[in-house]
């Protein structure tokens, strides 16, 4: 029987040498005349083990990692095709604690299947949600999504079902589904991972959204920094069209729905939904004032659902298993699961899908294993460049939209960047301001000017020039930006700045004194 060897093609695995490993494995198979086949899967999300090579044995899938091309001959010598012992052997992949502790709903197939095999997709439960959707009414689909408690995984946490209902109720000759795949936040890669590892789940989620709202056209706006995701999604859409999942009759139903993949052009602000719409229309990606809501007047002035990748990719499992199944995970008003991304200076970096409610400390210390450098954790930034820095003393905060808001933070896209004790929080605060200045679309003054003034003022603090007065000025600027900016870029930049200042005041003390004290 042909043995299957899985070698990820996910960008992170490629960045760690998966292509060389795949070549070496292919060469050994040929040289030894073995009956084995290489499958290029997505990643399981255990990035510190990549390239993670898996072999399908009678006993289940066993893993070896991180594998270097130079390890490959010895793996064959150790008879790894039958799960043989080797220094890189990890045992059964699904029994590894990092994996076993997860609740994989949205990412159920990611890393498991060949991303572009529809047969694999179906064999692992794919398309069941869409089949149910075509067999029911749009109103019922909207109700199911509403009842599931799914909230926008893009950061704002707005209930997905309510957005859908607004578009469903709007009367127009044309409606759109826009998937925001402009995943620009540092520490986030969940969107990229699912687009590369299970693209059909996003297509299925968008098709369900189309049927639910009466939209016939979907766009996936993917940032240009993700060429691999763009390539995989483009091929997946072609395959889905040929299989009758997209096109004039979705799965043979009277519903038409098609998808176009679009590439961004390197503007962080286009992750903001209204600037993304402008960008899709071929304009400068400046923010639009709301109202009108995109659900009423969105792309080309038509009613538009604009959802994040993970929100849309979570819809198929909700349709398939029912709203209650999904809603039963989580805490408070945060229902279901969230793919937490552990990044930066962390020992076990990767993606961990879990029900809401787990604490920050469990994630960083137990799941993440602390820092990669082995030094003490100093701070973690949650939610990307616009997210707050949390000190270790707040590690008991549960992962929940409201709990984070209560600590002056936000979950955002659920990325966590870990910093060890060598981090300089004044520098991090300055970077937040600098990033806002680089990426501001320029439309509103608090964001455009405030951020530039912020950088200058923090530079004065660092130089020891009237630190007290200048820190007050920073706080004042933050206040103006928070309440006076049109979108989250200017509005949320105060989170990293103020949290750094509040929780790590010692880093803002005049430098000469701080150095003398060491």
């Amino acid at each position: 029987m042909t043995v299957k060897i899985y070698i990820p093609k996910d960008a992170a695995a490629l960045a760690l040498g998966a292509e060389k490993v795949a070549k070496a494995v292919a060469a050994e198979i040929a040289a030894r005349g073995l009956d084995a086949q290489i499958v290029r899967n997505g990643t399981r999300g255990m990035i510190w083990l990549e390239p993670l090579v898996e072999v399908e044995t009678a006993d289940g899938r066993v893993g070896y990692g991180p594998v270097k091309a130079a390890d490959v001959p010895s793996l064959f010598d150790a008879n790894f095709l039958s799960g043989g012992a080797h220094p890189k052997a990890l045992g059964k992949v699904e029994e590894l604690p990092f994996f076993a502790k997860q609740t994989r709903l949205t990412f159920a197939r990611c890393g498991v299947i060949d991303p572009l095999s529809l047969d694999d997709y179906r064999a692992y439960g794919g398309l069941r949600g869409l089949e149910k959707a075509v067999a029911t009414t749009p109103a019922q689909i909207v109700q199911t999504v509403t009842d599931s408690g799914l909230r926008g995984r893009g950061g704002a946490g707005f209930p997905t079902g309510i957005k859908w209902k607004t578009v469903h109720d709007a009367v127009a000759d044309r409606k759109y589904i826009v998937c925001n795949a402009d995943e620009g936040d540092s520490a986030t890669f969940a969107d990229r991972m699912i687009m590369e590892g299970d693209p059909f789940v996003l297509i299925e989620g968008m098709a369900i959204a189309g049927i639910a709202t009466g939209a016939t056209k979907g766009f996936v706006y993917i940032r240009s920094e993700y060429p691999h995701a763009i390539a995989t999604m483009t091929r997946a859409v072609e395959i889905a069209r040929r299989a009758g999942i997209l096109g004039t009759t979705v799965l043979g139903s009277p519903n038409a729905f098609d998808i176009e993949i679009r590439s961004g052009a390197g503007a962080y602000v286009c992750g903001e939904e209204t600037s993304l719409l402008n960008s899709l229309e071929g304009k400068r990606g400046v923010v639009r004032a709301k109202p009108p809501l995109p659900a009423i007047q969105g792309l080309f002035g038509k009613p538009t659902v604009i959802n994040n990748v993970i929100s849309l990719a979570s819809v198929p499992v909700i349709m398939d298993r029912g709203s209650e199944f999904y809603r039963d995970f989580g805490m408070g008003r945060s229902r279901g699961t969230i793919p937490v991304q552990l990044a930066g200076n962390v020992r076990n970096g990767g993606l961990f899908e879990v029900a809401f409610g787990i604490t920050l400390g469990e994630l960083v210390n137990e799941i993440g294993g602390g820092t990669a450098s082995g030094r003490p954790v100093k701070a973690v930034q949650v939610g990307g460049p616009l997210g707050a820095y949390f000190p270790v003393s707040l590690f008991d905060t549960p992962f929940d939209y409201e709990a984070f808001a209560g600590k002056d933070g936000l979950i955002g896209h659920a990325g966590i960047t870990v910093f060890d004790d060598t981090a300089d929080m004044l520098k991090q605060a300055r970077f937040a301001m600098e990033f806002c200045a680089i990426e501001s679309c320029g439309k509103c003054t608090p964001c455009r000017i405030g951020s530039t003034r912020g950088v200058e003022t923090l530079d004065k603090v660092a130089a020891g020039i009237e630190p007290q007065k200048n820190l007050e000025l920073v706080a004042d600027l933050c206040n103006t930006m928070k309440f006076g900016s049109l979108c989250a870029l200017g509005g949320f930049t105060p989170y990293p700045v103020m949290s750094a200042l509040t929780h790590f005041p010692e880093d803002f003390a005049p430098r000469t004194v701080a150095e003398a004290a060491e």
Partner: protein
Amino acid sequence: MVSQAHSTEIATQTRAIVDSLKWLEGPLLPILHEIQEEFGYVPQESLPVIADALNLSNAEVHGVVTFYHDYRREPAGRHVLKLCQAEACQSMGSEKVADKIKRLLGIGFHETSLDGSVTLEPVYCLGLCACAPAAMLDGEVIGRVDDEAIDEIVAEVRR
């Protein structure tokens, strides 16, 4: 006169690209991407052609081209090296990596080496934040950039 012939050629090729894509809904960004793919940058000569075909003013097209970081106004070096400078990479020493590479290549960010071999750019997240610091060389991704990787990168762009 060579330059004039060159301009005409750019205009002709631009026209062909525009004609093949203008049926798209919101075609401007796809057209600009394709033009950059074709020429390696977005030539000034392309702008009036696009504006004319899409019924836009020159200023509107210019405004869009300059808004997005991706569109180059002049050709890049033979290699393009992007170094991630966002937070997760910062936590793993991306600044030191950038300093070292700048020193070795003798250029700063947004600069091209005198021999035209390489253009160096900062990028803010490549989605490789769990294997930071990250880089991208001519579209190839590189994770956990350490001294050894830096040497390989520098050797590659000098080749």
